[in-house]
């Protein structure tokens, strides 16, 4: 029980830093994200700098932390193990790409932007949750 509380506190801390980072980065703004995706228009490369900054920390983290053998608050690491490049991976990513290009929101920034109270953000997140629930309903894991 206590360990569940510690794990939740750790997840809360990670979420807080993630949300702050999204807000600071400017990526909560769909117009700016579309500015990156619009390579034929008035291209805004900011997203590449966000990815660069994030990878600068995440690459060494993924290189060195797993060598500890176990995380601090769990018995073992729970990292994805699938290896196959299959149709769900590519098809799902393509569907996601269409939705991302239509609106400029991917899941993290959309949820982080709920704090604005803007109706279009709530509409997007509601539709996104419906899409996720539909996938679960159709037997997806």
């Amino acid at each position, binding site marked *: 029980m206590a360990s569940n509380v510690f*794990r*939740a506190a*750790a*997840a*809360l801390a*990670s*979420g807080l830093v*993630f949300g702050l*980072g*999204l*807000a*600071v980065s*400017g990526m*909560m*703004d*769909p*117009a*700016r994200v579309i500015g990156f*995706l*619009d390579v*034929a228009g*008035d291209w805004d*490369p*900011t997203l590449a700098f*966000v990815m660069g*900054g*994030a*990878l600068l920390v*995440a690459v060494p*983290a993924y290189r060195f932390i797993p060598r500890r053998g176990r*995380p*601090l608050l769990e018995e*073992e*690491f*729970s990292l*994805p193990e*699938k290896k196959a490049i299959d149709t*769900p*991976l590519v098809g799902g*990513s393509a*569907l*996601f*790409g269409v*939705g991302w*290009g*239509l609106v400029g*929101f991917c899941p993290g920034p*959309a*949820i982080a*932007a709920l*704090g604005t109270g803007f109706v*279009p*953000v709530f*509409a*997007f997140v509601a539709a*996104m949750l*419906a899409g*996720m629930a539909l*996938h*679960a309903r159709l037997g997806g894991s």
Partner: protein
Amino acid sequence: MGDFSPISGFAGGLLIGLAVALMLLLNGRVAGISGIVGGLLTLRTRDTLWRAAFVAGLVLGALGYLSAADVPVRVLAPLPAILVGGLLVGFGTRLGSGCTSGHGLCGMARLSRRSVVATATFFGVAMLTVFLTRHVF
């Protein structure tokens, strides 16, 4: 390039990377947002608390900055596109096992071939979608 802001982008990116590192070091997990949120929709009690805590942190962390600084959130798509786009993002990220954070960041950092393919696919398709909606139709 009126919106170009490499310094705040890079600083925000460092924070996002730190969040990913924290999740890995403390809980041994990938900080993939579509997976964390999607897991809340199927009831598995042991994981529900930390997943909900992460999502609460995501909203509160952004809200803290929103209340201190001027953060534009410009959703320019019309409502039907917002709803269709939301459905596609939700369904697609679950079918494809990840989104910008899980595949694009954590997966790329782990040098996962699946994530490299997924990331190239959703970036490529999103760019094509923007090209078609902005410059063709």
